[in-house]
């Protein structure tokens, strides 16, 4: 693979891998380091990359292996991202709705964080990286049914959380 094509692929996948690392490792610096290390590994091992697997599948496998290795190495406490909430405040001028939205998103962040590693990796790949279930199944070497079942459990947890905390109202409009 020539270096121009390699750089292009890295450019296309860098943020996706970073977001996956960020959500799985729950720490910005760790995610940044992990992403760099993942891409260095990709570069080092590019000669062993076979065309039978697509580049994204291969790179996600390297990424998940590295992320799980890092997660085992050090289990850090959940790290909030204050800048996220500052940004949300800036984007909405109505103070009461800002508060409501902030509360809602904080709650969502917590529930996503509380997902099991399997549910979380599927959820992040599906929503953050916008991969299809088929692609996720290829990356994880699991059946589509298993992947979907992780996704359904994750979504059910999110729904229950929103419902229990009365953060959104259901059924009143029908």
């Amino acid at each position, binding site marked *: 693979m020539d270096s121009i094509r390699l750089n292009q692929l890295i450019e296309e996948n*860098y943020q996706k891998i*970073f977001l996956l690392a960020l959500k799985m490792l729950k720490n910005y610096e760790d995610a940044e380091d992990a992403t760099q290390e993942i891409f260095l590994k990709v*570069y080092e091992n590019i000669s062993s990359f076979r065309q039978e697997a697509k580049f994204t599948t291969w790179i996600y496998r390297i990424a998940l292996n590295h992320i799980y290795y890092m997660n085992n190495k050090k289990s850090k406490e959940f790290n909030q991202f204050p*800048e996220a909430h500052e940004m949300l405040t800036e984007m909405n001028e109505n103070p009461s709705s800002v508060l409501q939205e902030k509360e809602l998103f904080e709650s969502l962040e917590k529930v996503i964080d509380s997902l099991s590693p399997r549910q979380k990796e599927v959820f992040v790949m599906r929503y953050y990286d916008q991969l299809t279930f088929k692609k996720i199944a290829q990356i994880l070497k699991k059946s589509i049914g298993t992947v*979907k079942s992780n996704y359904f459990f994750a979504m059910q947890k999110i*729904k229950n959380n929103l419902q229990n905390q009365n953060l959104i109202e259901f059924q009143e409009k*029908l």
Partner: protein
Amino acid sequence: MKCINKNILLDYLNNELSARKQNKIAAHLSECEHCRKQLAEWEKVLNITQQFIDQDVKIHPAPPHAHITQRFEKIPQKTERYFWVRYWTKPALATAAVLFASLIIFFLSPKSVPSINRNYYVIDNIAYTEEIYLNDEYLDDLENIYLQEIYANEELTDDILYGDWQHYEEVLDNLDQDELEELIKNMYNNSVT
């Protein structure tokens, strides 16, 4: 048609179903208020989740990474290896390492027959003593004196003559305290440590 399972509803909202199934679900939804409510709830959950993720992605752009591609130039790429090398080298090395470790453990493990090179031996007479350390130089004496005493016993003699040290130790263990003390006294002139 029965009410729609929540997983199917999510598949429906994610356009994961075939056109035929999608139409079937749509037809059921037009008739069933309960399922319409369920669908509306899930739609709301998916919309909020998507909004949250859009914000989250926006505030977490890819960190600067131009320097990574520059670092590539300094790192040598691993050269491509043949299929069998890639898939067999590691298991073969692991097997060799296990065999090597087993051999090391086997040769270094304490043997029941004392080696000539050891500086001293331990006789552990469970009944009467704790541990008595015998220096090499006294070991031959111990053997000679003890042999004289037990030669009378024909069953034991063979084992001792043919060097069955395990048996020999068992015999030592079975001596009573007086016999053992006498033996040691004779042999060391009370210089046992």
